[in-house]
């Protein structure tokens, strides 16, 4: 295969810039492990407690740190009175380093230090000092004993009162503002118009594992066991924050207990632990309390979305506008790209997608599962439901009529797109034809309804590298700083390696999360599997090339299976083809393909709810999702990703809301008793189906992101089902019972 020959950058590197499609893949191989619903390879370690998370590493002379929070919402610290704290038994030190401590977590992929200078407090709960103790309890008591003196300053705590202060943010994944055609005119001329405003609240990822770091300096190098998603860029953030060179910081994150974006960048505890460890000459562990996770990591910004749709009499969209107000702390650049899916989901000549960012003195906003689509698709897909109702059309038919032949703004082809097939297959599997007219299916106290919504999630490829070593005893060892945040990375990388090298799965060892290993994409934006998976694949491809050469055959004629190379009627153990361990580093980089083809994953959600006519309580009865995301690498872990996304969707629709006190910006509901993620009783049996697909334009393994597809549109399907059950449209999420009964008359 000549294409492979070209790809070798050097003897031990197989690098690929994705400038051309890759029509064939060795993943369609003979070992037959790819795609299979294989259990997580690290599962037994996790359930036996032998998979150490960041806070679980032993260290000699370890001491414990607890962060001290600002107890005011905006102003300048004038004094940190640590007298009482220092007097407590077991307290070693109270460390303030205003200039070095970070105010909020770093953003995903950023390589600069997050904003520093915590003396200038920007939000209630900002970490401003660390108390270190011989025990965790001593440090916690010490933190509670610190007294602060401060001068308060004017602040923005109330979103509704500062809506006029929105400004266009800097272009990121998408531009802050974008326009095409003449929206206003087309909307005004449209025979059918819909103009609705949806709001979504602040949310928190609420990962099971809180943010945690153990910092230890060894010979001038910081070793930090951290709960992080993107090791390579996090090392850079941490080095910059500490003012040391990047090679003096090594982050290790072998197991991470959920991230959902909240652990993309370094969080305040990492810098504080590193500063304290240096000062004290001892390793320092800091684990955020759950209350601090809510208060001092990142939230998903609340949004206000005005959506206007103008169509002809048949429901074909001619004018589309999705304008969003979002918020972040002053000095933070990140903004929630609410309309990212709106750019390409539906056709329409005249369109605008605008975002305006309001500076607020609240916990920083950052990435949370499917930034953009998670909230934007709630607004847009509910608006589409309203439009269908207005037109008297089935919501699936409305989407069929607005299916674009190509990406409607960039006018480029889709690499693959199966949104309408997902809707159609889902409709059949779910029994969509049984849906009744809104508000007409009442049995006793309960109102029954069904809802549908489409799912889209942009696909992204990131630069990623991995080294694979084929050992003389017939094993393959994978080394990359990629992370497994509970998603199944260990397993899919083992499957890719086993399939490409023709090895039984138990002959593959995967090492992740060590910053000394080749730099990967990290986990985020649903790009982890496609990016790091491609790097592992390319490394294995390089090994195949060498094995073929050693065997004296071409790559094409060689089959690898069960540890043997088979070609020309010969079957040779691969161990006989190498004299010493053979290592190849694979590296993938995005290229022209992402400009030539619009890449995204697609799906459809169907939901059945019942709503209590007396109390307004909602119970989700059934939910079904159909998804297409290129090659499915592991049916079980992919399915789990979708189940998790759909569960997030139920939470977003019904229960989750991070509440700030409007007088101080303080997070009011700071624990899992009052920040309501869905519990088992809120989540019925969920059904997930995949459409068969290979995306040859995306990457050499033909897979696209799936981690965030399951949440996209999920909440809208729930909300649309509530409307169908009750005839009540609530446009302010979450749809709690009080908002329903406000509009639902009570027939005493």
């Amino acid at each position, binding site marked *: 295969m000549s294409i492979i020959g070209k790809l070798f950058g050097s003897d031990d590197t197989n690098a690929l810039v994705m400038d051309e499609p890759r029509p064939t893949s060795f993943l369609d191989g003979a070992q037959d492990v790819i795609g299979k619903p294989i259990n997580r390879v690290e599962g037994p370690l996790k359930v036996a407690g032998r998979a150490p998370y960041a806070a679980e590493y032993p260290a000699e002379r370890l001491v414990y740190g607890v962060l001290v929070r600002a107890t005011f919402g905006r102003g300048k610290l004038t004094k940190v009175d640590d007298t009482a704290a220092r007097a407590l038994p077991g307290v070693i030190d109270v460390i303030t380093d205003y200039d070095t401590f970070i105010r909020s977590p770093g953003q995903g992929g950023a390589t600069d230090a997050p904003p520093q200078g915590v003396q200038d407090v920007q939000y209630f709960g900002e970490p401003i000092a660390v108390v270190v103790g011989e025990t965790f309890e001593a440090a916690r008591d010490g933190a509670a004993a610190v007294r602060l003196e401060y001068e308060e300053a004017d602040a923005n705590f109330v979103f509704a009162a500062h809506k006029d202060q929105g400004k266009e943010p800097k272009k990121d994944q998408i531009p802050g503002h974008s326009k095409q055609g003449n929206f206003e005119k087309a909307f005004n001329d449209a025979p059918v118009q819909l103009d609705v405003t949806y709001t979504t609240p602040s949310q928190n990822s609420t990962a099971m594992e809180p943010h945690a770091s153990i910092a230890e300096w060894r010979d001038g190098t910081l070793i930090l066991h951290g709960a992080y998603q993107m090791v390579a860029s996090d090392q850079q953030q941490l080095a910059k924050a500490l003012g040391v060179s990047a090679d003096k910081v090594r982050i290790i994150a072998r197991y991470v207990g959920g991230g959902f974006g909240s652990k993309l960048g370094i969080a305040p505890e990492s810098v504080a632990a590193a500063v304290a460890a240096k000062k004290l000459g001892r390793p320092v562990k800091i684990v955020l309390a759950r209350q601090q996770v809510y208060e001092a990591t990142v939230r998903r910004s609340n949004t206000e979305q005005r959506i206007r749709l103008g169509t002809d009499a048949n429901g074909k969209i001619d004018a589309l506008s999705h304008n969003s107000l979002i918020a972040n702390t002053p000095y933070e650049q990140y903004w929630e790209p609410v309309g990212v899916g709106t750019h390409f989901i539906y056709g329409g000549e005249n369109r605008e997608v605008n975002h305006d960012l309001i500076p607020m003195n609240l916990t920083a906003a950052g990435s949370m599962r499917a930034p953009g689509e998670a909230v934007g698709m709630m607004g847009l897909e509910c608006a589409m439901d309203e439009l269908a109702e207005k037109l008297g059309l089935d919501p699936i038919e409305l989407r069929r009529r607005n299916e674009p032949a190509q990406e409607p703004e960039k006018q480029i082809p889709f690499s693959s797109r199966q949104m309408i097939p997902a809707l159609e297959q889902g409709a059949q599997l779910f029994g969509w034809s049984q849906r009744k007219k809104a508000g007409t299916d009442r049995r006793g106290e309960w109102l029954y309804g069904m809802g549908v919504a489409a799912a889209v999630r942009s696909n992204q490829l990131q630069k990623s590298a991995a080294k694979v070593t084929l050992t003389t005893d017939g094993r393959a060892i994978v080394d990359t700083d990629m992370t497994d945040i509970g998603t199944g990375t260990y397993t899919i990388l083992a499957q890719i390696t086993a399939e490409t090298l023709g090895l039984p799965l138990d002959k593959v060892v995967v090492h992740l999360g060590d910053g000394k290993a080749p730099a990967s994409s990290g986990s985020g934006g649903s790009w982890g599997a496609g990016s790091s998976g491609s790097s592992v694949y390319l490394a294995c491809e390089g090994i195949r090339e060498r094995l073929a050469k050693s065997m004296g055959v071409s790559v094409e004629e060689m089959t690898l299976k069960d540890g043997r190379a088979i070609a020309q009627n010969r079957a040779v153990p691969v161990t006989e083809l190498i004299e010493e361990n053979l290592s190849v580093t694979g590296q993938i980089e995005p290229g022209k393909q992402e400009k030539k083809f619009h890449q995204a994953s697609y799906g459809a959600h169907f939901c059945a709810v019942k709503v209590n006519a007396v109390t307004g309580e909602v*119970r989700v009865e059934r939910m079904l999702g159909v998804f297409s995301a290129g090659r499915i690498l592991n049916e079980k872990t992919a399915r789990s990703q979708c189940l998790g996304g759909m569960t997030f969707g139920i939470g977003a629709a019904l229960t989750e809301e991070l509440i700030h006190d409007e007088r101080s910006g303080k997070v009011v509901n700071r624990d899992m008793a009052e920040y309501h993620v869905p519990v088992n009783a809120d989540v019925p049996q969920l059904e997930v189906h995949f459409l068969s697909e290979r995306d040859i334009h995306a990457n050499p393994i033909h897979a696209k992101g799936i981690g965030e597809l399951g949440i996209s549109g999920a909440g809208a399907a729930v909300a649309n089902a509530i409307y169908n059950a009750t005839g009540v449209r609530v446009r302010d999420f979450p749809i709690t019972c009080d908002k329903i009964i406000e509009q639902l008359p009570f027939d005493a």
Partner: protein
Amino acid sequence: MKTFDYQRADTIEAATHANGRFIAGGTNLLDLMKLQVETPERLVDISRLDLNGIEEREDGGLSIGALVPNSDLAADPRVVEKYEVLSRALLAGASGQLRNKASTGGNLLQRTRCYYFYDTASRCNKRAPGSGCDAIGGFNRILAVLGTSEQCIATHPSDMAVAMRALDATIVTQKADGDKRRISIHDFYRLPGDTPQIETVLDAGELITHVELPAPPAGKQVYRKVRDRASYAFALVSVAGVIEVKDGVVASAALAFGGLGPMPWRNPAVEAAIVGRAPSTEAFEAAADALLADAKGYGSNDFKIPLARRTLIATLRDLTA
């Protein structure tokens, strides 16, 4: 958590003389101690006292040991069969793990879940008397609309206690001087007034040893809880109801409410509105009017007033159907 002394009591007398805070399951107290919302100097562990039994009484009622775990009480066949409202209320509370650990006596003494009570950086008259109340004028979705004061609008979070109030339970205690008291649950809790930190009539060192239920009431029993998620959430509104209908007329009624007030709420006027009358929408509405006549919302909890009305009326319809 502030440093504290720990003492294990082997007898009720030792416990009442120990001069400390009692701890049994610890499902509420330990969380509050970690946050320094509670800072007892001494914990007296009563979990080994012999107060684990559920006995039938001569009058046909039950005597429930203060240490009986919530899950055991909910599953006791006598409770399931004859005090259904109590079993259902228990199972509507907390989670399986918490119910396994939480005790009967401790459940009665749960502290409020007010967001501001839980955060020492907020003003709270219940936690720090005289400091003020940040819940008034703040976010108060889960807080009270009945029995509040200018000092405090906290709710009592228990489900179990609401059912016990409907069942006319009696709380049996023992004091340090050996005196035993039998306190009707109707007299057990105090309104916040100017002293929201004082929640019950218990004296210092007074230990709940038992809770007595009178003979099972006649009629239908129900516990209905409205909450923000299907499990593991405190009541926005709950109703514990026991109603007997004879000859087409409500012969007796006991109605208690959770999520509305600083204590499990019961108001005789609510029952008086329906007793002696034929079940009807008018009668039910009169009961709701009686319940909510003095209700006062504080902004984000205003919805509890219409929600309580609807929930009560629907519950009465069920109980009299």
